[in-house]
C-alpha cells in the first residue's frame, strides 16, 4: 500500500477514534481491514453483499433477514453503503458497545421501516422463523403471534400500541436479556472475542452485564 493511503488511514483514525471504543491503532487496523475488503480503491465503499459476507464468516450470523437488518443499522445514512466512519462506529458498538449503544443499535435493526417505532407487524416479521414449525399444527402462525404478544407486553409499558425507543430502552435496562429479544442482531461473545483478538491493543471486556451488581443486591 502506498504511503499516501497509509497516511490517509492514519488521519481518519486520528479523527474518529475518540468517537469509538477503540484506540487509534485499533482504528487504523480496522480501516486497513476495510480497505482490504473493498478492494483498495480510495472511494470504494463496503456494499451490502460484502458486508453480509463478513457477518457470516466472522460473526457466525446465518439469518439472511437479520443480516439485512444489521446492515441497515450500520448504514446510518441509508445510502446502501457503509462508509469508513460507519464501519468504525458500527464495529465499535458491535464489539465493545455499552448497553446503551447496543440498545440503540438493536432498535435500529428491529425498526424495519425506520419510522422510529416497532409495530406488531414488524415484530411478526422478525419472529416469523424463530419457532420450529410443527407439521400437526392447524395454524402455524399461532405460536409466532403468541410470542409477539409476549414481547409486545414486555416492551409496550405505556400501552401505546407501538414501541418507541424510550420504551424499548427502559425495558432493556430493566432486563438486559431483552436486548436481542427480536433476533440476534449482535455477535455472540465467542466470535466477537475471536474477531477482536486479531488486532486488539487493550483488553476491554466485550460483554455487557446481564445481572445487577451493586445497587441491585438484596
Amino acid at each position, binding site marked *: 500500500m502506498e504511503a499516501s493511503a497509509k497516511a490517509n488511514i492514519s488521519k481518519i483514525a486520528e479523527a474518529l477514534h475518540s468517537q469509538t471504543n477503540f484506540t487509534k491503532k485499533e482504528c487504523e487496523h480496522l480501516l486497513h481491514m476495510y480497505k482490504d475488503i473493498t478492494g483498495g480503491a480510495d472511494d470504494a465503499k463496503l456494499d451490502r453483499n460484502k458486508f453480509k459476507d463478513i457477518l457470516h464468516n466472522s460473526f457466525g450470523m446465518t439469518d439472511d433477514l437479520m443480516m439485512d437488518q444489521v446492515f441497515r443499522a450500520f448504514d446510518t445514512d441509508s445510502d446502501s453503503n457503509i462508509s469508513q466512519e460507519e464501519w468504525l462506529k458500527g464495529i465499535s458498538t458491535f464489539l465493545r458497545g455499552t448497553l446503551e449503544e447496543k440498545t440503540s443499535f438493536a432498535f435500529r435493526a428491529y425498526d424495519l421501516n425506520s419510522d422510529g417505532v416497532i409495530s406488531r407487524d414488524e415484530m411478526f416479521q422478525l*419472529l416469523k*422463523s*424463530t*419457532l*420450529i414449525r*410443527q407439521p400437526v399444527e392447524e395454524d402455524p402462525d399461532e*405460536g409466532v403471534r*403468541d*410470542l409477539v404478544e*409476549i*414481547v409486545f407486553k*414486555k416492551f409496550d409499558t405505556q400501552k401505546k400500541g407501538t414501541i418507541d425507543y424510550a420504551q424499548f430502552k427502559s425495558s432493556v435496562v430493566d*432486563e438486559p*436479556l*431483552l436486548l*436481542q*429479544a*427480536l*433476533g*440476534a442482531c449482535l455477535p*455472540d*461473545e*465467542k466470535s466477537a472475542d475471536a474477531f477482536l483478538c486479531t488486532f486488539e491493543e487493550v483488553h476491554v*471486556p466485550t*460483554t455487557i*452485564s*446481564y*445481572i445487577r*451488581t*451493586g445497587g441491585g*443486591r*438484596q
Partner: protein
Amino acid sequence: MGLTLTKAADWLDNSKLDFSPSNQIILTDILKAVDGYSKNNPIGGKMKFSEPLVWDSTLKFEDFKKTERFPETSQEVAHVECHSFDMLQLVLDACRSKKTAEVRACLEGNSDPVSKILGNRYACNTEDDVEFYKQAEEDLQGEDITYEEFETKKVVLKMAMEFHNLDVRMLRSVQGLMSKDSRLSPRLVEAEFDCLKELSGSEDEQPLRDIEPVPCYVHVFSNGYRAPNFRQLQGDIAYFLVYLKDTDVICVTAGTKGWFVNKGYSKDTNDVDFERRSDLYGSLFALLRERSRHFRERTSRKSGDGETAADEAADGAEKPDQEGDADQQAAREEAEERKKDPTLRWVSLGTSEQQSQERRSARQPQSAAAAAQQSDESDSESGTDEEEDAVERRHESNADLPSEYWQIGKFVRYLKGGNQTSTIISLCALRDFQLNTEVCQLAIRDVGGLEVLLNLLETEENRCKIGSLKILKEISQNPQIRRAIADLGGLQTLVNILKEPSKDLKCLAAETIANVAKFRRARRIVRQHGGIRKLVSLLDCPALNGPTSPEIERDIEVARCGALALWSLSNSTKNKRAMKRAGVIPLLGKLLKSRHEDMLIPVVGTLQECASEPDYRVAIRTEGMVEDLVKNLKSDNAELQMHCASTIFKCAEEEETRDLVRSYDGLEPMVGLLNKTDNKELLSAATGAIWKCSMSSKNIRKFQELNVIEKLVRLLSDQPEEVLVNVVGALGEMAAEKENRHAIRKAGGIGPLVQLLTGTNQALLVNTTRAVGRCAQEKENMAIIDRMDGVRLLWSLLKNPNPEVQASAAYAICPCIDNVNDAGEMVRSYVGGLELIVHLLRSDNIKVLAAICAAVASIAKDEENLAVLTDHGVIPLLAGLTRTQDEELKRHLSEAIACCCAWGNNRIVFGKEGAVAPLVSYLRVKDPKVHRSTARALHELSRHPDNCITMHECGVVRHLLGLVGSDDEALQLAASGCIANIRRLAMANEKSRQSSKARGGGNGGANGKAVAAK
C-alpha cells in the same frame, strides 16, 4: 450340650432333628465327644447313668452279634437301652459307618441326654454359668457324705463340666455357620448385575446375550433397591430380564434371601408377576448355571470353575464397602445411569408423588453402612434434614390446576421448540411469573421445565444460560425443586458453569448452588464434582474496598455469590475439610475486611459454620479475623451481628480467642446486644458468646464492670430455651467467683435458676445444675436454694436418663450438702435418695461415677448417712471402681473412700476388697489434686494394720516421702500421718520380735521425717 440341643439345633415338628447343616455340625461334635470317651476316662465310663438312655436304634440285631458283649436289646427292632458310657461305646462300635445316624436316633429318643446321664439337677435349664457353679458347690459341700460318695460326685461334676464345655464349643461352631449364611444386599445384587452385563454379548464365547433391569423398575431408589416399596417389604431388591443363548428370556427376582425366577414380565401390562417359580440360589450366577447349558459350558470353560467368577462378583461388591468410600461409588453409578438413560429418570420423576412416598419408605431398611456414612456427614447439620423428607403436596387431578400451569406449560413448549430468540423471549416471560410462589415453582417442574432449563445450561448460548439460571436461582428456593435439580444431575452442570469466563454465569451458578445445596446429598454431589475448589477460587477478589468501577463491582459480586454457595456447603463436615484444603481461610479473612454487609453476611455465616471445626477456630484466631468479627459486632445489621456473635460463641472455646475478643474491646458490644430482647436469634448468639467468653477470669472482671449479671438475670424469665441455655451457662461460669455469686443473689437470680431445674431441656439442665451448684457455695445463696427445695430437685435429676445431667446434678449436690444447716437430716429426708446414689455407682459413665463419688464424699461426712450408705453396699462398689484409669474419677473416688472409712469396719472391708493397692498406684499420676485426696484416703486406711502391710508391700512409703515435701499442708499432714501409722506398726512388730532379733519394716529414716513434718 443341653443348651445347644434346645436352642441351636433345628427340631422338626415330630421331635425329629432336621437335616440342616447346623444339626450336622452338632451331631459330629457330640459323636466326637462320646466316641472313645470311656477309653480315655475309665472311671467315668463305668459310672452308671442316673437313668438309662433308651432309643429305637437304626441297627439290626445282627450288627450286635459281631461284637463280643452286647447290651440288652429286644430281638426284633433294635430297642437300645444304655446304662453307661461303656455300653454306649459298644453300640457305637457296632455302628461302624452309621455312627452319626445312631447319635441322631439317640438324641431324638432322649431330648435332654445330660439330665438322664447325670440326674435331673443337670437338666438343660442351666443357662448361666453362675448357677452351674453354685450347683457344683452345693454338691461338694453336702454334710454327711462318705469318701466314696464324694468321689462319685466328683466324677459326676467332672462330666458335667465336660458336657458344659462341649455345649459352649458346639454353640460357637453353629454360630459360625449361621454368620456365614448372609443375606443379599442391593450392593451385591448390583455388583453381580454389572459383572454379568460385562460378560454378555452376541458372540459365541459369551455366556449370555444380555441382561437388563425390568423396564418398569429401572429406577434405583436412594437405598439401592429397584423394587417398588411394597415389594421391598417382601424382601425383593430388583428384577432383571436375562436373555439366555439357548433358552428364552427369563425374568429373575433378586431378593434378600436369594435369586429366583419369577413368573415373568409382561410387556402388555408393563408389570412383573412376582410369584416365585424356582428354587432359591445364592447368586444369579448359580441360578443361570442351573438354567442354561450354554451359560454353564461357557463359564466353566472360561474360569475352570464357575465359583471363582461368582466369587469375583461378590468380591467386587464388597470392595467399596471395605474402602469406606461407598458414596463415591454410588455417585459413579448414578452418573453412569444418567448417561444411559436420562429420559427414564425424567419419567420416574414425573410420577414423583408416588415416588417420594416410596423413597421415604425405602429409606428405612437402609444398610448399616449407608447409615454410618450418613451420620458421618450429618454431625454438624441442623434443621436441614427434614428437607429431605419434604412432603410432596401436589394436586391429585388436573381438574383444579391453577391457570399458571397452562401458561407455564405453553412457555416451556416455546422454550423447547424454537431458536434462541424464542428461547430468550420465553425465558423472559417465565421470569414474569411469581417465581417465589410454590404454585409456579412446582408448575415449572411438573410441565418438564426443569429438564429444559438444565439442558439450556449445557448449550453454548450465554444469554440462554443466563436466562435459565435466573429462573433456576429463584425456583430453587423450593426444597422439592432442589431435590429435582439434584436428581436430574443439575448440580454437575452448575459446577461446570463455574469454570466459564463469564462472570454473570459464575455469579448465577454459585447463587443457584447456594440454594440447591441446602440438603446433604446435594452438598455431597457438589464436593464430589470438584465444586468446592471452584467456588473457593471465586472468592479471590482483587480490589475490595477501593474505588469501584462496574468491572470491580462484578468481581465483588462473584465473590459474594461464591461465599453464599460456600455458606450452604459448609454445613457438612467433609465439605469443611475440602474447603480448608482449597485454601478458603485466607480468602475469607480478606473478604471479612469488606465494608458491604451483603458480602459480610455470607462470609461470616460460612465462618460460623466452619468454626465447629478446631482447625478453623485456630485459623480464625491466627489469621486475625477476631478483630474483624468484633468490628462487625458493632454493625447496624442484626443478621450480621448475629452471625458474628455466633462465630465468637463457637471460637471462644479457646482461651486465646477469648483474650483476643477482650483486647479488641469485643465484650462491650456483646453486652450491648443483650438489650435486643425481641430478636431471639441474635439474643441467643450474643448470650452464647458471653457464656464462652466468661470462661476467662479476666473477661469475668470486665463483665462485672459492665453489670452483665443483672442483665443476664433479667433474661432468665420468659426467653426461649436456646437463649436460656446460654444465659444460664454464662451465669454458671461467672459464679466461679465469689463476688458474682453474691451478685447473682442480689439480682434475684437464685430463684429463677432453681425454678429452671424443673425443666426438661437437657442442655439447659446441665447448665442450670452447674450454676446452682456453684451458687450453693455461699451460705446465703444456699439458704434460698434450701427454701425452694432446690436440693430435692437436684436429687430428682439424678434419675434423668442423660448421664451428663446426672453427673452435673451430682456435682451440684456436693456444695449444697456442705453449706446447708443440718445436711444429714435433709439428706435422710429424701426417701430412697441414698439408695439412688449407691445405685448410680453402677453406672457405666465415668463422669457420672466421678460425680457420684464426689457426692458420696459429701454425704458420708454425716455419720448416720454413712451408715445407711454402708448398708446399701457402697463399700464394695467403691472398692470395685479403684481400678479406673480416669484421673477425675480417681480424685473423687479416693476422697469418697477417705470419707467412708469412718464407719464400722469399712476400713477392713476396703482392705479385703482389694482397694488399697490400686490407691497406692494413684500416687504415680501427675495431678496434685489426686495426690491430695489419695493421701487422705491412705491415711484413713492406714489406721488398720492389714492395710498398712498391703501399702508397704506396694511400695507406698517412697511416694509418701516425696509428698511430705509438698507445699500443700493438708497433703503433708495426710502423707506423714500415713507414714507414721506404717512406722508405728513396724515398731510394734519389732518390739514383739525383739528377742529373735528379726527386723521388720526397714524404713528407719521415715520416722524422723514424719515427725519432722508434723
